[in-house]
């Protein structure tokens, strides 16, 4: 397949690995922000090939993993209401809340839950089940938000009344700033998320370079893309000249996608958001604007978020901050497995714990 096979080819990977070997002249630590990067690194077996001295830690970029337990509890509560149907992306199905429940459990007890592949599919559900309120779970970063904004716009234009969104949408730079302000976290560079950057533009990371002296390289998701980004990071760090570089120019521009951003701005406004593991971060989420309040399920059903405790013993918080590896968690691989996950990092196909469990040694 074009754009995939060539980037997964040993012929391309080998010289990049040799170049990386040469570029790593002192030990350094890079955070791969995005869950898709984490998964690609594991799936390609790249960890077994990386030079010594290069330490990769996973960041808070798996949207399912950073969805707070209070949000999951609220979702389960909505699923159990009369005349509601939950439409969601598959990864969310098994995420546990704080009350020993998950949507998978709610589904087994009769809640109506539909896994969809595009937010627009929930409008079809709205037409099919006119007596039910279809609640789409808006989870994700800048990559997924434009599609959901477009869906709300379509529902508005087509006057579809029985559709609403539960917005836990998050935006990317603020959690990175929250992490970088934490003196315990020592990182030298960021492998910046390719698809988020396609929307917000590579320029969005310049403030991180200016304030934190951090090397930032936007990378694609295939093994050769990641290796190229790591080479650029290693060179920057060796020279001590941090800057923003774009190693994913076939998709990402410096400015980003203005049309998508405009559509998101039309529907959503910045809001404080609770992150699993990171707590409340100002202006790190998106709420539906008053003009479209009819599509905001929290207003429509008067949903209040209750404080929720994280599962006892679960280290997802520290893992999401890149402070600990999954293997340091007492539950990892024992009580917490992909079949019976306790923490969110084990549930999502892009979660760090799931990656370690599936592909680790």
């Amino acid at each position, binding site marked *: 397949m074009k754009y995939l096979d060539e980037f997964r080819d040993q012929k391309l990977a080998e010289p990049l690995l040799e170049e990386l070997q040469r570029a790593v002249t002192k030990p350094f630590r890079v955070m791969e922000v995005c869950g898709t990067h984490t998964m690609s690194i594991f799936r*390609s077996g790249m960890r077994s090939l990386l030079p010594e001295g290069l330490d990769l830690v996973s960041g808070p970029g798996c949207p399912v993993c950073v969805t707070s337990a209070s949000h999951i509890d609220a979702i389960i509560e909505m699923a159990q209401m009369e005349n509601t149907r939950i439409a969601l992306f598959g990864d969310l199905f098994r995420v546990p809340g704080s009350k020993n429940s998950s949507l998978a459990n709610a589904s087994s007890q009769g809640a109506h839950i539909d896994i969809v592949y595009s937010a627009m599919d929930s409008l079809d559900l709205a037409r099919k089940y006119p007596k039910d309120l279809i609640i789409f779970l808006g989870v994700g970063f800048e990559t997924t938000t434009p599609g959901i904004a477009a869906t709300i716009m379509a529902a508005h234009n087509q006057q579809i009344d029985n559709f609403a969104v539960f917005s836990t949408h998050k935006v990317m730079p603020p959690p990175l700033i929250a992490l970088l302000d934490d003196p315990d976290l020592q990182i030298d560079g960021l492998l910046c998320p390719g698809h988020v950057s396609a929307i917000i533009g590579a320029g969005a990371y310049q403030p991180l370079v200016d304030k934190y002296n951090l090397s930032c390289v936007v990378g694609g998701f295939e093994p050769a893309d990641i290796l190229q980004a790591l080479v650029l990071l290693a060179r920057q760090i060796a020279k001590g000249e941090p800057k923003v570089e774009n190693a994913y120019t076939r998709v990402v521009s410096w400015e980003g996608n203005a049309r998508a951003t405009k559509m998101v701005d039309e529907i959503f406004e910045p809001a404080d958001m609770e992150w699993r593991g990171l707590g409340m971060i100002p202006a790190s989420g998106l709420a539906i604007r008053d003009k479209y309040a009819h599509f905001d399920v929290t207003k429509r059903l008067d949903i209040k978020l209750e404080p929720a405790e994280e599962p006892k013993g679960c280290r997802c918080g520290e893992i999401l901050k890149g402070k600990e590896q999954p293997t340091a968690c007492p539950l990892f691989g024992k009580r917490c497995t992909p079949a019976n996950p306790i923490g969110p990092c084990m549930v999502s196909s*892009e979660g760090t714990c799931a990656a370690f469990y599936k592909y680790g040694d």
Partner: protein
Amino acid sequence: MKTDECVLLDHGSGGIASQELISKLFLKYLDNPILGSLEDSAVLPNQPGKLAFSTDSYVVDPLFFPGGNIGTLAVHGTVNDLAMRGARPLCLSLGLILEEGFPLQDLERIIISIADCCKSADVPVVTGDTKVVPRGKCDKIFINTSGIGFVADEVSVSSTMAQEGDSILLSGSMGDHGITIMTRRAGISLEGNLASDSAALHELVALLLDKLPAGSLHTLRDPTRGGVATSLNEIAEACDLTVEITEQDLPVHKEVRAACEIMGLDPLYLANEGKCLLLVDPKHAEQALELMQSTNVGREAALIGTLTAGKGGRVVLRTGIGGSRVISPLHGEPLPRIC
């Protein structure tokens, strides 16, 4: 069948309506002297060798999909389970649980498929049963088939027979069935020709057992639910050795790969309904490969790896970029991802 006719509770009552269904539908397509006798059980002639017995239930949704339907799966699934122990399938039972209101036209389509598969596999249905449950108590139609087969005395094929150094072969491409069902369920239409690989493998197995030197075919597994990854883990576990496979050697159709990329799925974990994994003495691997490739169901067969000493119960994949990673068994249903 008329287009508006549907299954009634009466059809499962055992009375006149049941008899009509048997004579006008089941016997019309599936008839043979043993089934046609309508006795309480089928009495079968004895055969030389060891007896193999297997059962499986089929609840697939959607019922009809490119490449097959629930009926083709019900025949091929049980025939293949018998074949995976080196058995020559002799006959099947057919149990149907029907939901009240299920269109008789759809039932007829399924029975015709079952009859066609039985005929081409030369494995008749010799006994059967039908129950009807009220609307909402089952999802349209559930099928159970059980099968009996015979294994020649000198044949011994099982996961525990796998030996260090064995070559691992796969009879064709991975994931065709799983991705066809998942994209149908999701209502995703993709260009290309995604179709289930539903097929009977017993003739392929018979050919291998006939032509390969005695004792050189050690293990057979059909990687259905859980895919090739899960079956290889089961084999590694059973023989307490390490399975090593190479990513580039894994046969996957480009349509399947494309759909997997879109949905965030791995073809190693997708179900197959007409493929088998073989563990063969490496001296005869080339011959086994050629034999498989000479058949229609095995035309895309490939040598995908080796069984090695090392940590027992482990499956390791050599990746495209030259790295390696562990392949774990499937945990839960594969779910499509967010982004």
